């Protein structure tokens, strides 16, 4: 039964996903392409590309697209495929949500306890490093262009990066406005 399988596989993917969407891609690929043959490796690569250019967490994007494609491939009509897509997406969420609720409730209750204060005192500096590391790792040629092959794209990307940084940091431009402006700039320049 395709729906039960989707529910099981994506619940598993949800609960074993530590550390962000990209970490879960290899897990999804293994389940969806290698084990269940719901799609080919090419279709999977397409999903990754589509996920990067659509809003939302990449894990949800993958689940929605896989749910839809798997049900269509199994020979069901479009409405059943939409149901499969929603089911797969919610399957990713529900287990971590229950876990998150228990942890949150504990923290909200013991917010002022000495142990919790001590632990978060050292964790806050770590989060600063975590975000900086994420930004550094994204400074890649996929995001900025290859300086050797296309110096034009690279220089413009660095300029956009600096403008976006100064704009949001010093001039307090709303990040959503910034994304829209940069998208418009890309459309006009390239």
């Amino acid at each position, binding site marked *: 039964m395709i729906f039960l399988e989707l529910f099981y596989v994506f619940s598993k993917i*949800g*609960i*074993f*996903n*530590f*550390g*962000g*969407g*990209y970490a879960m891609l290899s897990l999804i690929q293994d389940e969806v392409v290698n084990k269940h043959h719901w799609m080919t490796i090419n279709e999977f690569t397409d999903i990754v*590309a589509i*996920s*990067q250019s*659509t809003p*939302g*967490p990449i894990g*949800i*994007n993958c689940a929605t*697209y896989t749910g839809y494609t798997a049900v269509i491939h199994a020979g069901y009509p479009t409405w059943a495929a*939409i149901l499969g*897509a*929603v089911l797969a*997406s919610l399957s*990713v*969420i529900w287990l971590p*949500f229950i876990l*998150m*609720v228990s*942890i*949150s*409730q504990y*923290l*909200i209750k013991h917010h002022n306890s000495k*142990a919790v*204060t*001590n632990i978060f005192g*050292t*964790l*806050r*500096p*770590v989060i*600063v*490093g975590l*975000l*900086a*590391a*994420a930004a550094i790792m*994204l400074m890649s040629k*996929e*995001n900025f262009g290859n300086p050797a092959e296309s110096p034009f794209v690279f220089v413009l990307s660095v300029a*956009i*990066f600096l403008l976006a*940084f100064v704009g*949001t940091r010093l001039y307090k431009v709303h*990040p*959503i406005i910034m*994304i829209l402006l*940069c*998208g418009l700039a*890309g*459309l006009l320049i390239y």
Partner: protein
Amino acid sequence: MGIYTDIFLTFAKIGSFTLGGGYAMVQIMEKEVVDKKHWLDKEEFMDTLVVAQSTPGLFAIDMASHIGLKLKGVTGGIVGALATALPSIVAILLIAIFFQTFKDNVYVEKIFMGVRPCVVALILAPCFGMAKKAKLNKFNWWIPLVTVVLIAAFGVSPIWCILAAGIGGFIYGKLKS
């Protein structure tokens, strides 16, 4: 506007503009939830980041669940989580049903050539404000530095950094008292 509608609209908006992974929405969420709505203060927001990062599940959804829960209990959490996921589900369904060629569209690619460097800047920008809030001083400035090197240069999972720092903080507190 009722509080549930408010939670729903705020997180649907955040979900709509989460491009390029969960970290990119940190600044958007901070702006909406801390600066505009005052649902949390900045320290609480950073603590939420820690919890979301160290539990399984999607970063953005975890953040939304925690904040929704804090405001209105489990129902608030469910509303927050679903609202964050909804724009993503709708967008992918539309693409899957109508625009199979979306990713090859030359205009989409052009827009994203502009958006990608912007997303990197959006991830880096909140670090500086947070450094202040994390009370960085001459005793603990090395903590974020070591974290960056471990993660970016040695590929250590953020989970281990959080675990080590949490245990370290706990022991340090015990020794001090």
